[in-house]
């Protein structure tokens, strides 16, 4: 910054220049050994983005030679990190040059921090991948490049560091460059996201090719790392992409104004444009684009604005406003790449909450296609995903949402999964294919439909198919049926005493078998006048003796209610024991 404070400095010129600066977000990943912290410290120090008191506070500390500043200490923020000499979490750093403002997402490089790398990459326009020249291409560099590609970070700047340790040798550099290029091609083929890469030889410790071009490597004719960062195109230009506007909030200060507040996720909107609201599919035109600074005739992503429409539509938070010409897919089922981030592994058919744009929807992961080994890029079959695993899964939502593929749209194609019990963020997801809901349209994205699986049905009902036999007083059977229905189950009641079944006992078997195959909970009921309820499922049995529960001092209604409550609880426990419910929340009811 102080490079601008020349004698001819004019504040007006400076402010004008600042007004034109854009913003580049980039991620780095690595550990202390490969010099990542040193590289960042060097970038900050050489662009004069570090204050004197911050430098003073680390002088004489650290592990570098006397008189040399240990730049790593500028970036390790937490006490545990300084004590252990490692980077644990994502840290964000800021610097700017005359051309651009930068935000660095500085992330650790070890395998156990894959999730932090993904976090850093999720908002990055570019990734600086470090390779230790004295060691060649290691798994850490591959992993970071893979995650950058998976999260669609467009530009990968490869810094081959510690060139000073190998005598600034061009041949060694070219060999690494060729090796890593092959790796990047392999990665791009796997993720389907092309990676634009540039390879630079640097020494963070000595400052070669970080900010200033190095004299030690005449053979390298390209720009320094900072020059590259200053010139790569910023965030993927989404102005020409289809218009997407997730509604965050309905603003209704009085009866004369009704506006929909949100941040434009992609594309451009002009007043008069035809829009469609998803998932409802209703259409309108944009009448006004309202901001505090006055109405706009046109607004582009990623501005936060408020839209007023020319007619009254029922719109609420979570709806997606799209251009009528290029709508998004409305779907309850999607294929996605998942980065698992929680200690507790993924449980198929367990209920998670999916947060996508401005809405949260219950969801089940119904199948795992594969897990990707980041070392070999092999796809392996997997029964679950553990922390830091990356895999391909199918998710079934309990409510349709409007979405795009992540490769088309980094905003409407992304989601997180939240554990409904712990409230932790357990996974990051990138949609690779969605199955269209509209009967008329073919699936928007190419993928096989295949026969409907049992897992998919279970995901929808929240339980598997089973036969529950109930024998006892009618009012208790009714209460049980109602309670299951209230919990979201799909019980289908058959009276075993039905004439048809008495005449043709095999019919009962066929009917219930069909119900079970459809994932329904078949209730085979034999209502009688006995005071005891007997419930049976797959060899398990529960007996509730209603007569025991009469309290002579209580009213009949209270006695009935207590009896019903007892019977319902016993049957729910029986179903839990038999493993019928796949959703823990439903099982809790």
């Amino acid at each position, binding site marked *: 910054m102080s490079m601008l404070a020349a004698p001819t400095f004019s504040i007006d010129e400076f402010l004008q220049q600042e007004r034109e600066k854009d913003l580049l977000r980039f991620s780095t990943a690595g550990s202390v050994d490969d010099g990542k912290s040193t590289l960042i410290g060097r970038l900050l120090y050489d662009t004069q983005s570090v204050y004197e*008191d911050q430098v003073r506070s680390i002088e004489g500390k650290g592990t570098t030679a006397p008189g040399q500043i240990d730049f790593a200490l500028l970036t390790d*923020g937490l006490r545990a990190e300084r004590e252990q000499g490692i980077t644990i979490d994502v840290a964000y750093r800021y610097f700017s040059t005359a051309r651009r403002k930068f935000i660095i997402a500085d992330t650790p490089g070890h395998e156990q921090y894959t999730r932090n790398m993904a976090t850093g990459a999720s*908002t990055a326009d570019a990734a600086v991948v470090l390779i230790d020249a004295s060691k060649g291409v290691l798994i850490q560099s591959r992993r970071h490049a893979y995650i950058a590609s998976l999260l669609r970070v467009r530009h990968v700047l490869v810094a081959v560091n510690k060139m000073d340790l190998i005598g600034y040798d061009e041949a060694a550099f070219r060999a690494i460059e060729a090796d890593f290029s092959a790796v990047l091609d392999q990665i791009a083929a796997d993720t389907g996201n092309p990676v634009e890469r540039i390879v630079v030889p640097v020494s963070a410790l000595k400052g070669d090719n970080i900010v200033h071009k190095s004299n030690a490597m005449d053979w390298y004719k390209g720009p320094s790392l900072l020059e590259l960062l200053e010139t790569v195109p910023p965030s993927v230009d989404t102005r020409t992409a289809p218009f997407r506007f997730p509604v965050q909030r309905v603003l209704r200060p009085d009866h004369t104004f009704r506006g929909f507040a949100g*941040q434009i996720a992609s594309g451009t909107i002009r007043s008069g444009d035809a829009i469609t609201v998803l998932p409802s599919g209703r259409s309108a035109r944009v009448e006004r684009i309202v901001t505090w600074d006055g109405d706009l005739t046109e*607004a582009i992503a990623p501005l936060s604005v408020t839209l007023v429409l020319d007619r009254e539509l029922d719109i609420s938070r979570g709806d997606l406003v799209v251009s009528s010409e290029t709508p998004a897919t409305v779907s309850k089922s999607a294929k996605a790449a998942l980065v698992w981030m929680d200690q507790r592994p993924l449980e198929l058919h367990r209920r998670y909450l999916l947060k996508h744009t401005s809405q949260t929807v219950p969801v089940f992961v119904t199948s795992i296609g594969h897990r990707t080994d980041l070392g070999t890029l092999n796809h392996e079959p997997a029964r679950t995903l553990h922390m830091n695993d990356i895999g391909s899964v199918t998710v079934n939502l309990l409510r349709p949402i409007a979405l795009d593929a992540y490769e088309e749209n980094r905003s409407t194609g992304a989601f*997180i999964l939240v554990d409904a019990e712990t409230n932790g963020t357990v996974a990051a997801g990138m949609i690779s294919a969605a199955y269209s809901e509209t009967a008329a349209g073919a699936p928007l994205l190419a993928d096989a439909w295949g026969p409907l699986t049992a897992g998919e049905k279970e995901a929808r009902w929240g339980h598997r198919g089973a036969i529950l036999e109930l024998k006892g007083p009618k009012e208790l059977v009714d209460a049980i049926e109602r309670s299951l229905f209230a919990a979201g189950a799909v019980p289908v009641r058959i009276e075993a005493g039905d004439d048809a079944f008495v005449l043709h006992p095999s019919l009962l078997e066929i009917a219930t078998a069909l119900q079970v195959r459809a994932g329904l909970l078949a209730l085979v009921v034999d209502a009688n006048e006995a005071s005891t309820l007997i419930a049976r499922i797959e060899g398990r049995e529960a007996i509730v003796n209603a007569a025991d529960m009469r309290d002579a001092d209580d009213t009949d209604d209270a006695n009935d209610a207590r009896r019903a409550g007892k019977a319902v609880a016993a049957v729910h426990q029986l179903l839990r024991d038999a493993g019928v419910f796949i959703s823990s929340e439903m099982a809790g009811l």
Partner: protein
Amino acid sequence: MPAAETQTGPQSPHVTGNAPPRLSHLRLLEAESIHILREVASEFERPVMLYSVGKDSSVMLRLAQKAFYPAPIPFPLLHVDTGFKFAEMLTFRDEMARSIGAELLVWRNEQAIAAGTNPIALDTKRCCGLLKTQALLDALRHYNFDAAFGGARRDEEKSRAKERIYSFRDSAGQWDPKNQRPELWNLYNARIHPGESIRVFPLSNWTEMDVWQYIHEEKIPVVDLYFAKERPMYVRGDELLPIEQSFVARLGEQPQMVKSRLRSLGCSPCTGAIRSDAETIPAIISELISFRSSERANRAIDHDQEGSMEIKKREGYF
């Protein structure tokens, strides 16, 4: 919205002329912050905005006006008053809340104030603990707030560089830096159990320079203490200490008139001034460019010991 009308003009700051529209870094930061403000207002039951009267709070407040326009700001402002804030700050605070029609809550740890808590009688760490952290936690609990906006920025301090935008706090208000929720894209996890809360930092990605440029571009009013003028100060070497509270004076110490200003606003006994001629915002920006010290270098409370901000934050400080 009295302040609003004066700045609403026909020319849009967002898109210029016929050139392909390109958004400046300030527009991008503004759009991101507004998105955060709207998410919190929509996902929490009782959010509150911590309003400290400083420059960052002033920017945050303007962003809140923008986020919900033409509706009013849908949450109250909360000022934690330690009793040691500059008189000018309190006047400015009340006038600001009144002019934009916001609901203002003020909370003081009256018990500790009555007991004579001050940073000289106690050390700064314990003083902050009682008058700021404790008062804040009490206020949040008293009003049952489940989300609290703060104007902290990641560029301010090393441990703040690791903060999430939604910073989860347990039922005691504590921060666990080693066990933070991953935060991807702009998808914020607002789920909490009863008693837990989230601190939200809409200005996370702003720098001190961004804040001043935005104040300049948007003509946002700030407290006069930020601008240089002749003020009585106790001069101790390089340090300038405002005379606001008499107890800070050392034996025989006489104040001198010094042309000075405050770079960040805190409690008067612990906030040093700097010598400065910057009487306007461009002059402040110009001064900032030549600065080689971070803005919190003059805040005694950050330097009590190595990692002191992290320790305070773990205990519930912002």
